[in-house]
């Protein structure tokens, strides 16, 4: 566990770069991590997914799986993979300030 400064705020991250305390997350942090992940700008569609993940994790304590995201938001699998290219599972969770998704589907 190391402290990292993202968007001017110092937060705890694990060895894989995931934030360990979701309460430290801010929207500015999401924008910065998205840039690290190769997404230059977060659109309304991106936020729809990020907000859903934050909400889902708020109730279950776990980052939702990709299928939970598509069924929960109505965003198609194709669009999800286009919005977060090359590995949405980890990217979405990282940007949303959550741990790696738990679950296989």
């Amino acid at each position: 566990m190391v402290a990292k400064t993202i968007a001017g705020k110092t937060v705890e991250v694990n060895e894989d770069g995931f934030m360990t305390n979701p309460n430290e997350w801010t929207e500015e942090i999401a924008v910065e991590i998205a840039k690290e992940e190769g997404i230059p700008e977060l659109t309304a569609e991106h936020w729809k997914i990020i907000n859903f993940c934050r909400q889902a994790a708020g109730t279950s304590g776990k980052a939702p799986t990709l299928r939970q995201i598509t069924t929960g938001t109505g965003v198609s699998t194709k669009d999800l993979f286009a919005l977060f290219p090359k590995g949405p599972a980890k990217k979405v969770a990282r940007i949303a300030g959550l741990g790696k998704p738990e679950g296989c589907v």
Partner: protein
Amino acid sequence: MSEERKIAFICSKGTLDMAYPALVMGWAALGNGIDVTIFFTFWGLDIINKHRVDHLEIAPVANTSMKMSMMGIPGNLGIPNIVGVLPGMTAFATKLMKDKMKALEVPPVREYLQMLVDAGAKLYACKMSVDMMGLSKDDFVEGVLDIVTAGDFMDMTEGAQIVFI
């Protein structure tokens, strides 16, 4: 590393339990940004055959891992083979497994395949098996790109990790 990582699955079995490994691992790979190719050969063609995909089954006969504990009966009691041969037992075992999957929110095979295709997985059918079974591209679900030879498969999976199922 993950930028270039490629994985290829060879699906050679057409039973319900053997359809899922490539789907689950393929989906996980796509979610992690890994390139996924799936080659369906022999009985594995049932998984992409649009007339068969919703009817994949699991038979309790000679299945030493399918225990009554799946039905809540404790211990290592199996389903006796002599019982397994009775009419309806394969349908029963299949329903049992499908219900277990559904409870875990695992999608049915057809839907799972579509998810993989939408996420960028490339699906191919084995030419020799297709010829042997008298099938054509029209028999396959949407998303199957082509019918290819074993040699084509070798070419397209250069540098990939290959998993045979």
